[in-house]
């Protein structure tokens, strides 16, 4: 069922009723596991991720679970970021168990570790400490890598790890996968599984609302002329995701300030200067 030819061109609505530049429903929560150093739950549409951060602590990343995680060093002489991804057997429509050495997962771990290491200011901790990010995919419906990045980012904020900005990611695709109709091709934002299977798409991770691209993954063939539009769309989506993550963090912080768990902050105003 090619969705681009049959329905999209008629109403400019996608299979789930979104327009081309609409994100799916997002939910997020920080501190879902009080015993962990940092944790987050993130939902982008039906893709549901739980992220747990352990550390930074001085445990050798290669010793603890070498097969399950991949590490990258943040900020030159800084701390190491180790990422492990687990996909629950019930995450997809057909139940299947994935091994630890699934090559696709390993590649995602490498991408994630490198991307997170670029956002984390690891030099605050020194080279001996490691930040373990453990990601659990509870439900999978497209934009998996993007959701993993966003969940990990939220969990790192919860853990109080210093970062340059939120690391946010989003996918973008392009309608009409055939080569001829270039002018008819529309970029699409935040793809679900069905769209991912039919259309060329890329995942783009940026540092906050800036246009600094930290990671870009594109596994499908796409015409070069369409790439720019897709990247711009994805970067816009990243801004939307950053907005959303920021709101989650602020809400949590405000609740904590209200409850007196943390002291009220001060405000920098020009009046203080004399």
């Amino acid at each position, binding site marked *: 069922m090619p969705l681009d030819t049959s329905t999209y061109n008629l109403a400019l609505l996608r299979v789930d009723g979104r327009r081309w530049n609409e994100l799916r429903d997002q*939910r997020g929560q920080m501190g879902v596991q009080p015993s962990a150093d940092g944790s987050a739950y993130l939902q982008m549409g039906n893709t549901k991720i739980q992220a747990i951060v352990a550390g930074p602590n001085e445990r050798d990343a290669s010793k603890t679970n070498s097969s399950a995680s991949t590490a990258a060093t943040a900020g030159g002489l800084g701390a190491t970021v180790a990422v492990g991804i687990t996909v629950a057997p019930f995450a997809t429509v057909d139940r299947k168990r994935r091994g630890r050495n699934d090559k696709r997962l390993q590649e995602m771990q490498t991408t994630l570790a490198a991307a997170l290491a670029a956002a984390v200011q690891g030099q605050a901790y020194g080279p001996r400490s490691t930040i373990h990010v453990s990601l659990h995919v509870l439900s999978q419906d497209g934009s998996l890598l993007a959701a993993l990045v966003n969940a990990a980012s939220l969990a790192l904020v919860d853990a109080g790890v210093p970062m340059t900005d939120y690391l946010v990611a989003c996918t973008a695709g392009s309608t009409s996968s055939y080569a001829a109709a270039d002018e008819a091709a529309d970029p699409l934002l935040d793809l679900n599984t069905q769209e991912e299977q039919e259309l060329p798409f890329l995942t783009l991770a940026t540092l906050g609302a800036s246009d600094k691209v930290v990671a870009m993954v594109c596994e499908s063939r796409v015409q070069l002329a369409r790439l720019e539009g897709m990247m711009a769309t994805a970067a816009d989506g990243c801004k939307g995701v950053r907005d959303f993550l920021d709101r989650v963090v602020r809400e949590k912080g405000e609740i904590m300030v209200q409850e007196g768990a943390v002291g009220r902050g001060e405000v920098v105003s020009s009046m203080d200067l004399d």
Partner: protein
Amino acid sequence: MPITILQPSLAPPPKPRNDDASDSDSEGGADLEGDIAMGRPAKRARTQDSSIMTPGEIITDDPQWMRGHGTYVIPGAQSNTILSSVAGTLAKTNKLLSVRPLRARYTPEIGDLVVGRIVEVQAKRWRVDVGGTLLAQLPLSAINLPGGIQRRRTETDELQIRTFFSEGELLVAEVQQLYNDGAAVLHTRSLKYGKLRNGVFMSVAGVGGGGGVVRARRQAFTLDISGTDEVSGSEKIDVVLGVNGYIWISKHIEGEGAAAESSGPGITRIEESVGLNVYSSQNDIIPVDTMREIARVRGVITALVENGLRVDEEMVIKGYQEAVEMAKEEPDSADTLWLGGERGKRLTNALVGR
């Protein structure tokens, strides 16, 4: 049957979602308004009176301020823009701006009282887990020898290093020194510090996280449990609130423990008081009543943490008294020790009077 066409009417206003308060669901779908109307929320002036800083948010671009912890400047940029690198609240110390994270691992400071666990024994030192980003170290020269003898540490001491502390053992110590990377060096050269026994260990979040241990004048104190009807005689419990969020609750032994403080002898009489059994790992016989009260104190602290209250001497003592009162109210109930859920809420509500 004719088909009736109803007049189009306005959609009902969206109902407010009654999700969990902490569950963020505002505007759910993060709709990108129209085409590309996404602004830069962080870079805009903060309109709401929220004092929360989030990563990447500009704190100030006034060159008068200096940047402290939790902030950064863009390297290479000519501007003096200070940005936040963690989510937290802003703190000003004269001209120094820093952001205190909402939640973070423990960062040691000189003079902190910490509870730690030995994870590694090396030739001349121990490596201690104090819940920080790096392991702390405890040099062999920074402990009291049994019997309080003052002398250089010899090879013999190095060979029997495991007779003092071995892997997995708990101790209370003070941060003596910090390295550049933030690693701490501990010492136990006081009667207040040393190996822990006769009690129970618990860990609460290091900094923030909705409560936790706060730095206070006194981190170790003695609780009188003779107030409870069930306890015969005058029994006491020692509570050590490590600044790192590690807590030790134990049976009080006269003249020992971290709460002994000034009542103990001075440095001149240290030989007489540092007994030969300070490095014993053997528990004394603990009466069942004392065990129960230790468990009650532990329950109080868990309730404080679960309900986002700070853990300090005042709160623990008041909470304990409240818990004893609660237990008296329901004498027939068997599990008055359990202070989770509804009971914990009741306890903490009584404490803060809400």
